[in-house]
């Protein structure tokens, strides 16, 4: 069964159709990239998958459950329990240390556990930077903290929005390597990007244009 299935969803803002009858399926454990130029509907789709918005029409099945009609509160619960988010601008709480930022995610999810949070930081190679404030970390380090934060609650789906958009190549590679590790562990990944290199790292790329799925590309080099 697919982990995520969008069935004929549309999102309409007045005259504008941000998404127009889109259907996609993402299997459990799959790594999918979503590409498209500005205004193609990427952000809208990301919002809907991230349970931060609802489609005007159509169904969104997450783990077989239709979440397209759920209340805001229920969507928050689902997002917290099933989805790990990674953002282009990292978004850390500026006055909390790296490890505290990871613990914030635990705090809302279940119980803060400093040891576990430190382990997660260790996984992204930042254990010794745990007590640093975001302002004392480089961009790449911040994004790695955000990856640690996204995976701390073992989400079924990691949703990344231009995760390497603000990083240099070296850090981009570190983040992509982390994604590979997660993928190998069976985590489902959806990465929204306009960077072909990042897209090529995924198993499959869905290209959006004018609110529609223009094409899907299977990455034949995946895993090579």
């Amino acid at each position, binding site marked *: 069964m697919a982990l995520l299935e969008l069935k004929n969803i549309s999102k309409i803002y007045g005259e504008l159709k941000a998404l127009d009858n889109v259907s996609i399926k993402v299997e459990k454990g799959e790594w999918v990239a979503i590409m498209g130029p500005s205004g193609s509907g990427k952000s809208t789709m990301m919002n809907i998958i991230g349970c931060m918005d609802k489609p005007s029409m159509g169904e969104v099945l997450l783990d077989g459950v239709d979440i397209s009609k759920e209340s805001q509160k229920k969507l*928050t619960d689902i997002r917290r329990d099933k989805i790990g988010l990674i953002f282009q601008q990292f*978004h850390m709480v500026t*006055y909390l240390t790296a490890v*505290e930022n990871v613990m*914030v995610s635990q705090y*809302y999810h279940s*119980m803060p*556990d400093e040891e576990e949070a430190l382990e997660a930081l260790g996984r992204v190679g930042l254990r010794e930077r745990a007590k640093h404030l975001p302002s004392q970390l480089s961009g790449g380090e911040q994004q790695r903290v955000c990856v640690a934060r996204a995976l701390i609650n073992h989400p079924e789906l990691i949703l990344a929005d231009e995760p390497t958009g603000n990083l240099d190549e070296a850090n981009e590679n570190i983040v992509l390597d982390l994604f590979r590790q997660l993928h190998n562990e069976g985590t489902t990944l959806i990465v929204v990007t306009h960077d072909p290199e990042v897209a090529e790292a995924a198993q499959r790329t869905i290209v959006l244009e004018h609110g529609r799925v223009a094409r899907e590309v299977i990455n034949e080099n995946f895993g090579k």
Partner: protein
Amino acid sequence: MTKRKMFLRMITASLLRRRSRMLIALLSIAVGATILSGLVTIYYDVPRQMGAQFRSYGANMILLPEGNSTLTMDTLDTALKTIPEENVVGATPYRYVRLDMPSRQQSFTSAGTDFSQVQKTSPYFSVDGEYPEKTRQVLVGKEIADTIGVKVGSSMELSYKNTAVSSQEASGDWVPGASLTGSAEGFNEAVLTVNVTLDENAAIESIEIDASSQTENIGALVGTDPVYLKQFIGKTLPLDGEDIDALAGATISSQAVVDAVNTARSTENAVARENTERFEVTGILSTGGEEESYIYMALEDLQKLTGEEILDVAELSVSAGAEELEEYSNSITGAGLGISSRLVKRVTKSEASVLGKLQALVFLVTVVVLLLTMICVSTTMMAVVSERRREIGLRKALGASDGSIRKEFLGEGMFLGGLGGLLGAVLGFVFAQVVSINVFGSSINFQPLLLPVTVIVSMAIAAVSCQLPIKRAVAIDPAIVLKGE
């Protein structure tokens, strides 16, 4: 780590690591709390403070002997025990007696009192020179001083004549052949004396009048005018007003002669006591009132002159509210000491009315300050929320419910409220102290209860002020954290 610990860690981190913005909120709460606790302190201390101020208008309670009973220092002390000691600003005994000044052949009303108390119950007394501190020193009213020309450092002789020596009526002395002496006040309160001898029928045989204290060539003529004097011969006592025709132009002196004759006693019974003392004038008293025509001396000095220990009146200055005063007054009157207590209404009434107005004003200012504090805190928190929009969005994206967001901001607000309240309670006391010293000229007592009250009120105000900003925070869309926002 528990959720509570993480909650506190987040809040303290937010406050400690984002100092500048939070300092403004903290400062506004602290200022509000300072004014609050300061004004509340003053509000409760005003009656005490103003009470002391009002006491400068003089006594507000008067004690008098009731009916035939006498007032003495002992009964006064007993009466004072019914009032808490710290409320008694002063209690001044007074004994009024007329003393003669032989050198000028004049007599003046003299008051025996306790000068240390006078300064408390009549702070408006203005003394040129010093209050007497030793025995045989007097404070002379300005009017008398001007009349007789005494100055600070002058000395004056005062004497006390006890005329009513025998409890027996004067008529007991009207026996045939008696020789009687009497005196009475004539014109300008000057005393004239008469000597009368009675014949075998107890009628007046001869009369001598010393009227040299009366006005020359007018009143003084009663002592020499043969026609006037002749009228007395052969009359029996007591003289009736119609028996004697007054000397033309000297009715007061003439009446005094009649009074002196009617109260004249036989020589062996008369003037049993005449004490004279020399006093040093240490100060001249001006008050603008009747006190200027009195001579004040220590009560002990006057008692020595008169040989009596009674008081005429005691003036009390009591620092208390109108109701308390009424209570004290009633308990003194009802204590069975033979003392009746009266309140000086014009003082107590105006005190109550001014206090009421002052407290209302302080209350109003407090309310306004609290409102301003709320507006200030609310505005600051609003700015904090808009500054932290992304963070709030992130928290929501990470799964924070509306309740969590609300709790976190309320937590921060109340933490600030508590801290600001604590700071304000301490600063407020300092503020009240400064106001008190500058305005009322006296220090203030710290009210321990005010500390928790200020902290709790500040927290409540912070909580109320945070409501609108929290509403804003909760309404923030988590999608804000995605690109394109």
